[in-house]
């Protein structure tokens, strides 16, 4: 539909009537003030929780946990090695 055709179409009485009906039926409605307030409060509370666990904080927690895990596993391996060595030494002395 080209420009002229579409302008002519918009001037047709039945289309003018249809757009008038649309204008009458599709009026701006407003949400209730109570709903807007309550959802607003919930969203701000949720955004605070997001802030507490912002990406940098989450990254920090992850790195810290990974570091602790590594230290724990190294300590575990060392403990096992030391215990084995001690029991081996004990057996040698007894023999």
């Amino acid at each position, binding site marked *: 539909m080209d420009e002229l055709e579409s302008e002519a179409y918009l001037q047709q009485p039945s289309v003018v009537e249809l757009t008038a009906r649309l204008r009458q039926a599709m009026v701006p409605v407003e949400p*209730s003030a109570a709903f807007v307030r309550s959802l607003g409060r919930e969203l701000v509370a949720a955004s605070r929780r*997001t802030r507490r666990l912002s990406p940098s904080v989450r990254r920090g927690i992850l790195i810290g946990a990974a570091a602790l895990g590594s230290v724990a596993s190294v300590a575990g391996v060392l403990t096992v090695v030391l215990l084995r060595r001690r029991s081996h030494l004990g057996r040698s002395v007894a023999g």
Partner: protein
Amino acid sequence: MENLSDSELIARAREEPELFGLLYERYVAQIYRYHYYRTGDVQDAEDLTARTFYRALQAFPRYEDRGYPFVAWLYRIAHNVVANMLRDRSRRSAVPLEAVATIAAPGWEPHAETERREENESLLAAVRRLPPERQQLLILKFVEGMSNAEIGRILGRTEGAVKSLYHRTLIALREELADERKGEAR
């Protein structure tokens, strides 16, 4: 803070997530109206508005300003949210959408208004049978009073394309109403 542009407010809200509340205040009524005219029901409109803003809050850290208005991003989320709900509802029950989506006008209305209200309801039910993008176009044009250029920025189309889509929408709506009248006459 209210005087900040959307881009400025978005930048601030990235540092202080509580400021998302100001973006919410700016657009809650617009998103509510979108859902109201897509579903025709106050409860659904409230539920879908809440879902839209919760999803927006979750996705906000990944939001990228690509030159479209912020509200265009919110409308995209709103579109997905309402599409999911309508799909779930159609799977769960065989109740026709028009029956679900009849606008519940609160309060008593004078008798003289009844006929006009019924006409409006049948027109809005016909609007709700149009494809989602055409519904959105009518909502932006008639409910929000936007120009074709403003609608184009939200839909990501040129002004000419919006004009053409508008004309095709009116033709489709007229046909929809004519089919309805034929159905009633039978």
